[in-house]
């Protein structure tokens, strides 16, 4: 019989206000095996833990039940405390009477009754708990970063700095991501390229970093410390090792009419191209969909011109298998395409552009060499209207947009307005806003400068309609503070479109078995305390893939993720989850049912000798679980008809004991 101690946490008033904690302690003290039962204000506090440790010592407890918050919160805390007192940590169970009781029930009698039942279930389970010992597994000392934007770059650089190998997988031909397309950065207005491209070069030159550009993650197997990843290197029809990046092919290719995605389609590029001058790796890529040679077999000009002999029309996609100890998701974002907002005229008027498009229109390396010209007639716009929150902050039921605030738009719009007024003082700039959100160092000062120093017209209200009439954009908008409806003749309208996670993130999350929220942002392990980790061990989050962020925040999170990765890779061995499957060889039929449902290939079979009746021996095929590989999902336990396969910590009998305790009325 176990000697069980029960501890009821008040959690201040979080629990005690709704649950009669004294009554719960009293009720549970009569349960079989319970030798000590008490309540305390904060069990997770130092003194609460001391209370528990003293009780373990004094009452020679063999098992502990803490009725408190979710085990996802403090199970580890209490298990550690028990371990310090020499009790096996897996002899501690939590009854969740906060999230599952006090926070959701109002009636004290009802809540108290439920708390007692949950306590009983935990006690029933502890009776069947066995001390568990965690195994160990080795750590592959290399990290994978998925995405080569500023987030991925920073994470990779920091990890490499600590002396570990890092691979970056980037689906585009070059790293750099969205930041490479941006003109200037707020609130300091330094040029994005000037601060980004040196980092890109650092990545290229770092011996610890290997870039898989124009590549995608194909599959992910394994678990923390031991991931096996297949990377698809898409055929770029150019030998990366031979190409010198001289750019001759990209100048001579006769196919000139391909819309240039780097410049948001405002100009064209060739079928063989290098996205931009500072691309890393600086290697040409043939766009097979547009290449005449690839389509018709006639041309081959680039191959003739290339002195390095790098062009290879027969190149195939290549699958590379690599092993990693940790994986960082840095899949980034895209601006929402505002084509569902018909009233704003994006699809019908050329001079209605998104903010990212404006970045290219203002960039010295952009299609207009930095002169702001209207896309339609290449004239200087004199009246410019900015519309905030396009597709952000929509109702969750609204299919046109996202429910969240995209966070960066207020600041980049202030930047745009300021830059335009600085460069073209004769321009009238209007910004229609719902709220101006500028929390951040020097952010509000920046916004105020746009208003006070640069005379940008900030109007509280929204644009309701944009129509084009004879080359002028008729903007109808509200000015809520004056109660007017405004009619502005604008030359250019800029939509601050919402950011949304890159489309590839969903499938990557599935491969990583990392969870995502309803907006397809990766979920963090804890919103406050573990913001750069996924709940899935060994998966880390960097940048906008976790939620909207500006560059400084992205970079800090990228470094934070790197620190977490370094912490992991610095270990030689990882302590495994001891709650793994194990096979009772006496009961095992060797039928292979379990093996078929194991996602990790953790189950193997061997013929073993057993004692048969009448002093005979017989050889039976039985299953063995590799405890370092098993992750403890339990799929095998249900596939097993004989009950030979069971899960430590969540055994059939433990779960049934909980069922019985709950149903016993």
């Amino acid at each position, binding site marked *: 019989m176990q000697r069980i101690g029960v501890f009821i946490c008040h959690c201040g008033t979080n629990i005690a206000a709704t649950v009669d904690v004294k009554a719960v302690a009293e009720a549970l003290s009569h349960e079989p095996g319970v030798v000590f039962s008490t309540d305390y204000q904060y069990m997770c506090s130092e003194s609460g833990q001391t209370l528990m440790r003293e009780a373990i010592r004094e009452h020679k407890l063999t098992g502990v039940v803490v009725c408190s918050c979710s085990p996802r919160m403090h199970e580890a805390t209490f298990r550690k405390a028990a371990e310090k007192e020499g009790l096996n940590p897996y002899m501690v169970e939590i009854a969740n009477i906060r999230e599952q009781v006090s926070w959701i029930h109002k009636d004290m009698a009802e809540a108290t009754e439920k708390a007692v039942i949950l306590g009983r279930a935990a006690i029933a389970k502890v009776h069947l708990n066995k001390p568990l010992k965690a195994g160990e597994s080795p750590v592959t000392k290399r990290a994978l970063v998925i995405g080569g934007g500023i987030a991925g770059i920073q994470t990779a650089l920091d990890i490499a700095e600590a002396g570990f190998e890092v691979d970056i997988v980037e689906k585009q031909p070059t790293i750099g991501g969205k930041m490479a397309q941006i003109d200037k950065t707020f609130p300091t207005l330094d040029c994005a390229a000037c601060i980004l491209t040196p980092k890109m070069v650092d990545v290229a030159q770092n011996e610890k970093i290997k870039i898989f550009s124009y590549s995608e993650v194909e599959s992910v197997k394994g678990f923390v410390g031991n991931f096996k990843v297949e990377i698809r290197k898409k055929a770029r029809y150019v030998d990366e090792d031979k190409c010198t990046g001289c750019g001759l092919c990209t100048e001579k290719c006769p196919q000139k009419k391909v819309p240039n995605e780097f410049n948001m389609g405002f100009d064209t590029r060739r079928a063989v191209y290098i996205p931009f001058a500072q691309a890393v790796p600086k290697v040409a890529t043939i766009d097979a969909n547009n290449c005449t040679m690839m389509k018709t077999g006639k041309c081959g000009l680039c191959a003739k011109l290339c002195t390095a002999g790098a062009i290879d029309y027969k190149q195939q996609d290549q699958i590379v298998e690599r092993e990693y100890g940790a994986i960082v998701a840095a899949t980034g974002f895209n601006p929402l395409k505002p084509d569902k907002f018909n*009233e704003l005229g994006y699809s019908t008027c050329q001079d209605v552009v998104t903010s990212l498009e404006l970045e290219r229109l203002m960039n010295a390396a952009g299609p207009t060499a930095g002169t702001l010209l209207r896309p339609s007639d290449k004239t200087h716009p004199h009246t410019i209207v900015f519309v905030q*929150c396009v597709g952000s*902050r*929509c*109702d969750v*039921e*609204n299919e*046109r*947009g996202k429910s969240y605030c995209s966070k960066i738009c207020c600041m980049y719009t202030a930047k745009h307005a300021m830059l335009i007024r600085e460069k073209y003082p004769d321009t009238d700039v209007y910004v*229609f806003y*719902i*709220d101006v959100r500028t929390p951040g160092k020097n952010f509000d000062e920046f916004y105020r400068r746009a208003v006070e120093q640069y005379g940008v017209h900030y109007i*509280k*209200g*929204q*644009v*309701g*309609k944009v129509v084009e009439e004879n080359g002028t954009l008729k903007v*109808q*908008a*509200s*000015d*809520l503070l004056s*109660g007017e*409806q405004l009619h502005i003749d604008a030359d250019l309208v800029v939509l601050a479109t919402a950011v949304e996670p890159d489309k590839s993130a969903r499938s990557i999350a599935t491969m990583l078995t990392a969870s995502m929220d309803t907006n397809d942002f990766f979920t963090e392990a804890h919103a406050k305390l573990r913001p750069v980790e996924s709940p899935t061990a060994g998966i880390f989050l960097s940048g906008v893939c976790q939620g909207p962020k500006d560059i400084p925040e992205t970079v800090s999170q990228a470094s934070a993720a790197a620190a977490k990765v370094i912490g992991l890779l610095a270990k030689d061995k990882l302590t495994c989850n001891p709650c793994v499957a194990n096979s009772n060889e006496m009961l095992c039929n060797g039928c292979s049912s379990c093996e078929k449902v194991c996602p990790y290939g953790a189950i193997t079979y061997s013929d073993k000798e057993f004692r048969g009746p009448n002093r005979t021996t017989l050889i039976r095929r039985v299953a063995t679980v590799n405890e370092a590989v098993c992750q403890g999902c339990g799929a095998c336990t249900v596939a097993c008809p004989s009950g030979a396969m069971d899960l430590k910590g969540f055994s059939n009998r433990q779960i049934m004991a909980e069922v019985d305790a709950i149903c016993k009325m």
Partner: protein
Amino acid sequence: MSHNKNAAAVEQILRSSGVDVRKCMRCGKCTATCPAFDEMEYHPHQFVYMVEKGQIDKLTASPSIWRCLSCFACMERCPRQVEPAKLIEAVRLSVIREKGANHLKPEDIPAMLDEDLPQQAIASAFRKYSK
């Protein structure tokens, strides 16, 4: 809103319209969209705000409720699904019902017809002026 002296009227309007005024984030897109802006004393966003504040008397007394075209542009464009047009209609109906009579009868229509009048306007007129 129970502290409001117009609580019953507010409750009635919210219930008959099915609108949740608290969803409004005061962006003003409804008003920016409104084609009858110049005709209206109170504008769509103000309807939402004033109902929330319980200023029903001002709204029922205002010609605005008869000027709204019921074109639903505000509903269509609202990013928060607040649906001001439904609210305006609810206020209007509360007035019509109180007076106990339709403001527009089918027999009145032929005299008012004019060649350019879109049929939708007739449907809209019934919506506005009849119970």
